[in-house]
């Protein structure tokens, strides 16, 4: 009978009547667990009787650190939660802080935010597609996906100076107006990207081996998905037509037209199909944002909160004073609490911020989609084979940085 020594007792595996089961550790350093995830499997031969995720290896106490920083200093911390789509995390935090402050954001800033958030969704889904296929033995897709991701990283570098930890969205707007040539680069990328998705699909969608590994595997019913708090493409693949961008719009998403792909099958294949379609829809949204981009300022008119332009700071005494005050003592935020949620590539990303009226947040909580989605893994995998666990982990697209925070 399978039993545990004390150090691993954090993971519950109740005694079973069966004598034939054994415990298998998968991770924390397993190539297909996408980070430092440890899974404890109780197996009977090849079949999984029980699966328990053990997390916390990447816990860095980001929520505690936020409480010691000024509101504007929290933005770089949010980059590091979900490192595959830092701007989406920035967006969620700044929207929550702006809601606390009661700010109005100029449309140009909103549209650029939407455009970049959708490009981030594309680059995050590209990492998912590449690694998911790689886990299942399709090496070449990974190389194609990273080719396009490289283009996107160059675009982020162009606009923010960083490839990954961008911190480009700030409370009140954007850090800077995008540089010359930026919109042309985005347009160039969007023009080629549609064909590139066809290229990935030609490698995978008709591939007999890939279909066999995905179809009917790791099924999750609609009821289970809702009960287990699953969000994002995994929820939509289980037949729930729910997308925060469309249903509770934020940041001007109500101005964009896009389809929300859903499926009734609830298996790994359905999640794959939903994400592939999301790649195309994200391209559509980014294209609409690029074509209809309004003119105007990219910063809200609130000098006590938003840093002044560099030029103004050098020439105007008042701007210099505001700059000095914001940098040295922050800005106070009226007391209250807000919960702001957005649709991240993985599901519902939510920030719960409590302000006590000072310049530092009293509490910042991140509701990360992967944290909740991971709980569905045991329901998906029980009764299936070990090889299916790899497909199931890939299909919920977890990022351990945001699970452990």
């Amino acid at each position, binding site marked *: 009978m399978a039993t545990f020594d004390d150090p691993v007792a*954090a993971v519950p595996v109740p005694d079973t009547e069966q004598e034939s089961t054994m415990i298998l550790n998968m991770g924390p350093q397993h190539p297909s667990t996408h980070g430092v995830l440890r899974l404890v499997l109780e197996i009977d031969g090849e079949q999984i009787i029980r699966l328990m995720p053990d997390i916390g290896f990447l816990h860095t106490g980001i929520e505690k650190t936020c409480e010691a920083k000024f509101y504007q200093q929290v933005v770089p911390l949010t980059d590091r939660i979900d490192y595959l789509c830092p701007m989406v995390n920035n967006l969620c935090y700044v929207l929550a802080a702006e809601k606390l402050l*009661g700010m109005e954001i100029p449309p140009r800033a909103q549209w650029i935010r939407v455009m970049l958030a959708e490009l981030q969704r594309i680059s995050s889904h590209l990492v998912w597609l590449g690694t998911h296929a790689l886990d299942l033995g399709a090496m070449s897709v990974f190389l194609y996906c990273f080719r396009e991701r490289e283009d996107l990283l160059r675009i982020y570098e162009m606009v923010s100076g960083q490839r990954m930890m961008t911190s480009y969205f700030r409370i009140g707007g954007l850090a800077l107006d995008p540089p010359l040539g930026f919109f042309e680069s985005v347009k160039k990328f969007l023009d080629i990207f549609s064909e590139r998705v066809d290229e990935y699909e030609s490698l995978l969608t008709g591939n007999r081996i890939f279909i066999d590994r995905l179809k009917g595997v790791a099924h999750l019913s609609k009821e289970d998905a809702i009960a287990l*708090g699953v969000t994002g493409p995994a929820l939509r693949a289980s037949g729930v037509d729910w997308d925060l961008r469309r249903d509770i719009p934020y940041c001007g998403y109500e101005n964009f037209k896009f389809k929300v792909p859903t499926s009734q099958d609830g298996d790994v294949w359905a999640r794959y199909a939903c994400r592939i379609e999301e790649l195309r829809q994200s391209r559509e949204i980014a294209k609409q944002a690029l074509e209809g981009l309004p003119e105007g300022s990219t910063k809200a008119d609130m000098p006590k909160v938003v840093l002044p332009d560099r030029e103004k700071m050098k020439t105007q005494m008042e701007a210099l004073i505001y700059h000095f005050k914001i940098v040295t003592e922050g800005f106070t935020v009226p007391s*209250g609490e807000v919960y702001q949620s957005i649709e991240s590539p993985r599901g519902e990303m939510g920030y*719960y911020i409590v302000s006590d009226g000072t310049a530092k947040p009293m509490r910042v909580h991140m509701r990360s989609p992967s*944290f909740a989605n991971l*709980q569905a893994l045991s329901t998906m995998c029980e009764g299936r084979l070990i090889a299916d666990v790899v497909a199931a982990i890939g299909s919920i697209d977890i990022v351990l940085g945001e699970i452990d925070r």
Partner: protein
Amino acid sequence: MPLEPAITDLDRLKDHPVIAALLVWNDKAVAGAKFDRQELSIYIGREFIRDACEKLKSLGLVSFLSDLTCADYYPREPRFELAYHLLSHQRKERIRLKVKLEAGDAVAESITSVWPTANFFERELFDLFGIHFLGHPHLKRIMMPEDWEGHPLRKDYPVEGYR
């Protein structure tokens, strides 16, 4: 949108379907309400939280538990405020249920029987705030090591840790 003052008068908010349903079900359960920044918070008595969640779910007023978290108002008493962020897929609306807990008696009933997704969230609160959830299937530390002392997200725990 400029900020409007928060509405904290229960009488002005009692027409909201969720508050109305809760008042019909058990008027002792509702300890107060607040409408601030377009978000509705309902304070629920500690002993009623699980039943309130179950009732709202069975009436179809909410369908989904988005988030469960806590804030520490140290040194004020009651010190902890749990925040349950519930979502209705049909009405496309969020509400927040809040429960206040005293420092010496930081215990609440687990809602894992209503929404299994609360499992990890409650373990996280147990780990980082030291709040106990009665009826939780496996209340163990989730982020910190098993032998860790203290609860890091409490306000009386230093940011740099104990040295």
